[in-house]
């Protein structure tokens, strides 16, 4: 099976989408000539030209809102915001325009656009270049939010996001860009909203997404050595999220832990834990554990960031607590 890096899978997905549909365009800062700060768009300018692969000025607000106008006029724009942290400048286009247009206009139009938001830490980029803000978007009716954790999903979910008629926030963890994994020549199309059981287990369900999936799998390995069989669910899509798969698993394991890199409080895990607590109430033999970054900005120093980002140890510990 052919191997690829995560970033190459995104690059291939963008290229294939541009190839497949002349209405797909890509816009962002230094994404054309330079091929993108993380090289997600390398080679696209040469293949598809400056009209479909546009280097933009540093104008996040207008770029994201322009994507909405472009989508309402027949294009399928893919916008790269270099770091998710900068989306603070692009919220209006995403939240007040893209998310609401279909509803506001009585269903006259859809807004088929994608906003790519690289999030996460691990590279000592500090407080304004490491944030995980996906919970903001999951709270906004009209948006979809996906977060690929594997190389294959980097391709499949990017394609699915572009093909989707509604605005999709595509969250990519920077620490995964170098990840290599299998990328079949023919990737099965992903359905947004479908989770994947990344590891089968019987004793506890660990629900996660993005880079934290790998920490969860590592934790599951450790726990297996202790005789604990953890099922690991990769949500893949956060809005909508796959309640059915999660609740079915918890109905079997009777225990759950939700883990993500984002700050724990008021994060994605809060909604998941609340729903499990509500709809899975009678299934639970222990409180739903939550693992996430502590309530502080992402720090810079190695000694600080190491402890800031939830690791396999923290996840395993949370699982053990559910078994006490």
């Amino acid at each position, binding site marked *: 099976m052919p191997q690829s890096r995560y970033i190459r899978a995104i690059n291939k997905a963008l290229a294939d989408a541009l190839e497949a549909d002349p209405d797909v365009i890509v816009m962002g800062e230094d994404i054309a000539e330079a091929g993108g700060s993380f090289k997600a768009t390398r080679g696209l300018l040469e293949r598809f030209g400056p009209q479909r692969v546009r280097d933009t000025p540093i*104008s996040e607000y207008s770029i994201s809102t*322009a994507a*909405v106008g472009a989508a*309402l006029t027949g294009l399928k724009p893919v916008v790269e915001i270099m770091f998710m942290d900068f989306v603070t400048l692009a919220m209006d286009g995403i939240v007040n*325009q893209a998310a609401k247009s279909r509803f506001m*206009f009585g*269903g006259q139009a859809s807004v088929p656009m994608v906003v790519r938001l690289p999030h996460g830490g691990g590279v000592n980029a500090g407080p304004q270049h490491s944030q995980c803000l996906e919970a903001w978007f999951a709270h906004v009716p009209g948006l979809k939010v996906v977060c690929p954790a594997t190389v294959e999903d980097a391709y499949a979910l990017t394609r699915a996001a572009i093909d989707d008629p509604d605005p999709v926030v595509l969250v990519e963890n920077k620490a995964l860009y170098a990840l290599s994994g299998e990328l079949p020549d023919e990737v099965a199309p992903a359905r947004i909203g479908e989770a994947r059981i990344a590891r089968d287990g019987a004793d506890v369900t660990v629900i996660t997404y993005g880079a934290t999936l790998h920490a969860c799998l590592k934790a599951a390995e450790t726990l297996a050595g202790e005789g604990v069989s953890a099922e690991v669910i990769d949500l893949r899509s956060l809005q909508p999220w796959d309640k059915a798969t999660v609740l079915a698993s918890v109905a079997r394991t009777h225990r759950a832990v939700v883990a993500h890199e984002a700050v724990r409080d008021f994060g994605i895990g809060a909604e998941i834990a609340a729903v499990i607590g509500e709809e899975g109430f009678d299934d639970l033999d222990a409180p739903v554990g939550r693992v996430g970054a502590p309530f502080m900005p992402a720090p810079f120093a190695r000694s600080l960031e190491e402890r800031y980002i939830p690791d396999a140890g923290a996840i395993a510990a949370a699982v053990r607590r559910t078994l006490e």
Partner: protein
Amino acid sequence: MAARRDTNVDIGKLRALHDVMLRVRASENALSRLFADSEIPGFIHLSLGQEAVAAGVCAALGPRDTLATTHRGHGHVIARGMDLDSFFKELMGRAGGKCGGRSGSMHVADMSLGILGANGIVGAGIPLALGSAIAHQTRGTGGVAVAFFGDGAMAEGALHESLNMAALWELPLLLVCENNGWSEFSPTERQFKGTLKGLAETFGLVHRVVDGNDIEATAAAAEEAVAHARDKGPFVLECMTTRVRGHFEGDAQKYRDTEEMQGLGAKDPIARSRARLGDLGVAEAELDDMATAAERQVAAAVEAARADPLPDFDAALADVYTRRGTA
């Protein structure tokens, strides 16, 4: 100011423009009454006194062109040809509204006419139209995108960012500023120190200012502007006009001095075009009939809206996302 062409006036065309303005005027007057009688939920911003900008600019547009407007967008959508029934149903919150009664005055849109919506966010229509112009250019539609915005919106960074990208990419974009001198309850000169001319020229864009209450001058300037945007790239048209009513209905405008208010009559675009048509030999009776006809159309639309059912909640809830196969 763009020159007023007195030679060989096209009376038919002027009559048509006058007719559009009458329809906008009648609609806004009806809305004012409906709002007072609380038949209109929420709040509405009327374009009374600004009808010539809407009529003049929209008359210059072709079928493929698109436009994004503002919180004060009634005139633009009516001048663009929006069906009065679905317009009034929308503003009155009825199921038959063009947007299903989901969004009302501040978000009226009609995709079949390239109307990308009024907007509740000041300035947002500018980058929205910028993006629409990107689509026209990339898809080779031959269309032009128009952004209407007010003078108060000039303070938003979106204008600066969009002027730059429009210039950088030579987009088929027409920026129409309706300069009515007011930003809510403040004269814009207390809020904005720049000039639109200066900004446009800094980015190498053509800027024209026109008396936006002179329908002939505005229509002529708009024709030039749209042609330029279509063939040569971005154009900035600044229309000097007058806000007659309060910022929104219910605003008593205590902050405006009587002198300014009294001067509004003489500037009224419709009184002026009516006088002009009279000078050109159109009979008073005919002009009266035009006005009455517009009012009748509006009255009929209001009646239709009153008779229309209220929107169904579950239908709305089911339409937040596109159901596959429906978009």
